[in-house]
């Protein structure tokens, strides 16, 4: 009996405490908007101005005036494309880095140097190469988000236990069979950690890519509303971006958990 009341209590606390955290932040935000940053819209004002975008989340009133989930959807589509590209390039690259010492020696320095480059730097280069904002955006997302996949895949491949490789040798598995039946499954948990981090970065980059290219999406909307002086929508976009990123990470985390053997 005691146990059930306690778990009931802790559940309630688990719900109330985060809400308390939200309340504190909203309070600080309200205080800030009332005192030293008068241009910052208050929480109430933000809510009122954002409401049409929330109650009709899929509305399309014009190219740059659409419901927030419609914009989110555009962004997600773009991210999905760039992210897929990142995985398609990053996974084989990671395998090569993990399997071949020569390949690693040749390319690891390049990976380490390209890895910290900001999306704001890649995008202009993408525009130069592709001449169109669409592919330039995808290029930017791929270039920024593939590194965790590359590095974690390489780590996973290097961490395949020697025992499994010995088994493969003793059973005389062909190279392809060793790759797909032994190395890939053994490296998969590591790879998935990379995939998860990559998705986080891809979502992070989308805003920058859309801001610079003016493509419709959450990021594009954010920048446009800043220029239109509707600051409430900036906050709406930030909250949306945060929530979507959080949900994406949770989904990937759940899949990752399922992949863990033992």
């Amino acid at each position: 009996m005691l146990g059930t009341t306690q778990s009931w209590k802790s559940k309630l606390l688990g719900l109330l405490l985060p809400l308390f955290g939200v309340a504190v932040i909203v309070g600080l935000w309200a205080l800030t908007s009332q005192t030293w940053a008068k241009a910052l819209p208050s929480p109430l004002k933000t809510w009122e101005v954002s409401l049409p975008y929330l109650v009709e989340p899929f509305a399309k009133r014009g190219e740059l005036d659409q419901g927030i989930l419609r914009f989110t959807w555009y962004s997600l589509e773009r991210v999905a494309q760039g992210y897929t590209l990142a995985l398609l390039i990053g996974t084989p690259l990671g395998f090569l880095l993990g399997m071949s010492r020569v390949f690693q020696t040749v390319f690891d320095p390049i990976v380490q140097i390209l890895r910290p480059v900001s999306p704001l730097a890649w995008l202009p280069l993408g525009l130069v190469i592709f001449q169109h904002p669409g592919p330039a955006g995808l290029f930017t997302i791929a270039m920024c988000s593939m590194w965790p996949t590359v590095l974690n895949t390489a780590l996973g491949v290097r961490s395949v236990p020697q025992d499994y490789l010995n088994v493969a040798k003793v059973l005389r598995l062909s190279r392809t069979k060793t790759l797909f039946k032994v190395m890939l499954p053994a490296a998969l948990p590591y790879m998935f950690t990379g995939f998860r981090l990559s998705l986080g970065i891809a979502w992070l980059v989308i805003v920058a890519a859309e801001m610079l290219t003016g493509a419709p999406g959450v990021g594009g909307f954010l920048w446009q509303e800043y220029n239109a002086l509707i600051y409430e929508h900036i906050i709406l976009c930030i909250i949306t971006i945060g929530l979507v990123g959080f949900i994406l990470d949770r989904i990937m985390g759940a899949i990752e958990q399922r992949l863990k053997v033992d």
Partner: protein
Amino acid sequence: MALLELREVEKSQGQTHVLARASLGIEKGEFVAIVGFSGAGKSTLISLLAGLTKPDAGEVLWQGKSVTAPGPERGVVFQNYSLLPWLTAFDNVYLAIDCVLSDLPKLEKVRRTERYLAMVGLSHAQDRKPAQLSGGMRQRVALARALAADPEVLLMDEPLSALDALTRASLQDEIERIGRVSGKTIVLVTNDVDEAILLADRIVPLSAGPSATFGPSYDVEIPRPRDRRALNHDPKFRLLRSQITQFLLDSRQTRRSSTLPSSLPVGELVGAMS
């Protein structure tokens, strides 16, 4: 000509000189047990026989030809089972058959997998993953995997050392039976003198490392099937046990006296073997 032979093999790992001038011939159909201390280079020996590593000097010969890589004629049972954890017991065995006996029709491969799992008494657990199996069951799967590929010789690297005493005893009986029924050549590496006498036709002690080498062979002239309870009162068994134990302890003593003249912690070995 011996079926499998080590000729004057030298092997170092890092700074350690593991094997020194190790020579051993294994005849077809023989059950040979190699007994030695932990860390004496027994696993290195299996790796050499399997073709997973190459000797620094000397040769490993299969039917007179030099061994350079693992081959289907030499099956290996690893100390830590080495089952692929993402595959079920069935799939682990099937993979071996699929690779080594790739010409068989699929139905035949499935039947063969089922037959070998049944042989080690695991038909009921064939759809479980290794994590859902006990240590003894895992080693049974590993045994089935090695046997199902129909090797000419079975190399076993301390296959039972990680198991509890009861499981160990029942798997010893299993190995004894399989060796007797299949007539396969078996090389068993172990640190347990009793186990070696119970199972093998011939026992070769490996002297204490570093620079381990083989001692004289001891033939086990105890008729099969051997009964582990009767064995304890068999004078041949007792004599063999004391001879082999004495050889191992002496090899350690010479090893110690050349490095550490005073102390002689032999109690640990005697304890482990009683």
